[in-house]
């Protein structure tokens, strides 16, 4: 017995699959319906948005060691700029761009810091936003991922272990580098060494004096500076006295470096958490020095 029925002609789907969509971060080919790039795990929404909106977003990365405060910094920055658009106006492009500020502010308002960013790139939060500064005529489209500090260090120690980091940092127009001021102030040099490693890695990626990292803007941010008031008074002097290696490297190899201090928690305590041990918790949230480094960086990125 022969049954008759209607069969949809799906050849157009096959045609779509045949055309590869390049990832905006690494340039690798992906199918049109891929959610994440199969090469670097960056969200393909970035590529689709760039194609549909006919813009070429710039990239800015927040880098630093694990636990230095990258997630809190980026989340607070996004939230502050979207709530008070006096100096800089920030408009998120796509719902996924709001997740980072949502999880950061939700945790902070509960009196906790957000959970550590996982090492797997497919679980990172990405931000694609349009930023308009008062002085700039044209808005700038920016892509900012919240990368895991441990993944960054892994990539530095074993290059090409995280393709997404390598591709992103090669194309970044500038970076926000976070260094823990409280650790530096207490006399330990670990943060100094980590920061020097990160800077050296950037130079390795592109050392062209005109277009490479020597001439790209780097906002050096001393995070957790609320525990070191002298850092707020003069961040550059703090760098010279507490991170001399970093200071010297910046002077010698980079032309566009500016030092800043920032803090989010006015005061901190600890809480014992099963399996995690003693974790730091903020006793109140009073952000300082969050917008200034970003504002400086945006001013240096040519639109």
């Amino acid at each position, binding site marked *: 017995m022969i049954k008759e029925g209607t069969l949809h002609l799906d050849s157009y789907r096959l045609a779509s699959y045949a055309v590869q969509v390049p990832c905006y971060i690494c340039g690798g080919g992906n199918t049109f319906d891929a959610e994440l790039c199969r090469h670097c795990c960056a969200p393909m929404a970035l590529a689709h948005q760039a194609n549909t909106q006919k813009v070429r977003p710039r990239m800015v990365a927040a880098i630093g060691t694990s636990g230095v405060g990258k997630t809190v910094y980026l989340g607070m920055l996004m939230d502050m700029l979207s709530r008070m658009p006096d100096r800089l106006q920030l408009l998120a492009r796509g719902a996924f761009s709001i997740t980072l500020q949502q999880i950061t502010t939700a945790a902070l308002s*509960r009196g906790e810091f957000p959970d550590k960013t996982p090492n797997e790139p497919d679980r990172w939060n990405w931000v694609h936003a349009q930023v308009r500064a008062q002085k700039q005529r044209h808005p700038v489209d920016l892509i900012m991922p919240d990368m895991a500090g441990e993944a960054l260090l892994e990539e530095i120690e074993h290059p090409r272990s995280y393709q997404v980091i390598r591709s992103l940092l090669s194309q970044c127009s500038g970076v926000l580098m976070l260094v823990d001021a409280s650790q530096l102030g207490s006399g330990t040099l670990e943060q100094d060494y980590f920061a020097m490693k990160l800077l050296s890695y950037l130079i390795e990626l592109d050392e062209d004096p005109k277009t490479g990292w020597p001439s790209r803007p780097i906002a050096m941010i001393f995070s957790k500076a609320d525990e070191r008031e002298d850092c707020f*008074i003069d961040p550059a002097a703090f760098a*010279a006295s507490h991170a*001399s290696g970093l200071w010297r490297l910046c002077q010698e190899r980079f032309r566009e470096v500016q030092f800043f201090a920032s803090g989010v928690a006015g*005061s901190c*305590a600890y*809480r014992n958490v099963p399996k995690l041990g003693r974790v730091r918790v903020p006793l109140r*949230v*009073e952000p300082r020095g969050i917008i200034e480094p970003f504002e400086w960086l945006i001013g240096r990125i040519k639109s």
Partner: protein
Amino acid sequence: MKGKFRDFATKLQAVPRQRWAWLASGLGAAFLIFGGWWNNLPLFGIGAASFALGVMYILGRRTSRASMPPKAPAAPAVAPTPIAHQEPRAPVAPEDTEGLVEQMLAQGRYALMLRPQVVGNLSAAHRERTRDELTEQMAFVPAGEVELGPWDEHALDGAQQDEDRHTAVYRVDAYYLDRYPVTNRQFLEFVMAGGYEQMALWDAKILPAVIDFVDQTGCLGPRYWRHGRYHEGTEELPVVGISWYEAMAYARWVGKRLATDAEWVKAACWPVPLGPGSRMQRRYPWGDNMDRERANIWGSGPGRIVPVTEFGSGVSVGGVYQLVGNVWEWTSSNFGAGGYSRPELVLPTPMKSVRGGAYDTYFDNQATSQFQSGENPVARRYNVGFRCALGACDVSFSETNDAAEPVAELQEAGA
């Protein structure tokens, strides 16, 4: 037109010197070549000089950078704001009662004159004036119960609420609370009167550290002052950059004390008893809903500390200004004591309780009457000030030494 020229000049000034040097050497080289080609001596000379100067500058800078150790940059050259000029008060002879009373009133030390042991020595007129000063400067908070509880019930989900809802009910005696936080002008009286040198005012354990309570210029005083004086134009701003011990010393000097946690919350929540063990308390001094027009917190004010008389619409039921917003306020209680706030916390150092939020407090739920934060008692923060309290039993308005509880205000409060 002038503006355009000015903008252009500013842009030119902003170009780094090294770029000028590169430009000079490049142009110089071009002039040198063309001058030689055309046998034009002036062009050749200008080119040679320009090229030599540019190259010398670039090479000199590179050599100095390679050989010199990195130096810390100088502090940003910001012209210091002028400081207020105020001479110390002339000493008053002990027998000059009139002068003594005037001086103590001017210094804000009226509470000392209303002590039950002292008030009998005042004339009726002086007693009247001193009482008026007290009622003008301080608000009466009637006795009663107040519940201190979790800082944000909304942050707890349903399952957590029963487990984590730590509350404690305190009985508070009647007391007076400053209507305004202590200002720079008021604190200057304490500094000029030698408050930092009067050892009797200070806790014995902090005496060795009092010498470290200095301002920007090394003089004794709040952290952000200069030469022992506040900056001009900041006289009505709440004093900040003072430790808990300095706040305590000032309070003792004016014959008052710091409010306890329970007292502070009672003034802000203004509990109304509904029945046995039940009361209605306000989330904010003005009511249960956040109104950003009524408090100087992040995003609502000018982003800095404002004079103590501003944000009058946020006044509490009892008439106390800025209980929420502008600056945090030291209380006399220990942070974490009582177990009602966040009992699970482990403190790096013993902390004192601060309440009320400041101009940069980001979340509304951290600027409520119940929210408690902690601070190291020796910390001298840019956004922590204080206001003083005075037990009603510690002052008397009559010669008979009766406790000063204003009957009219008590009836008004329903106590």
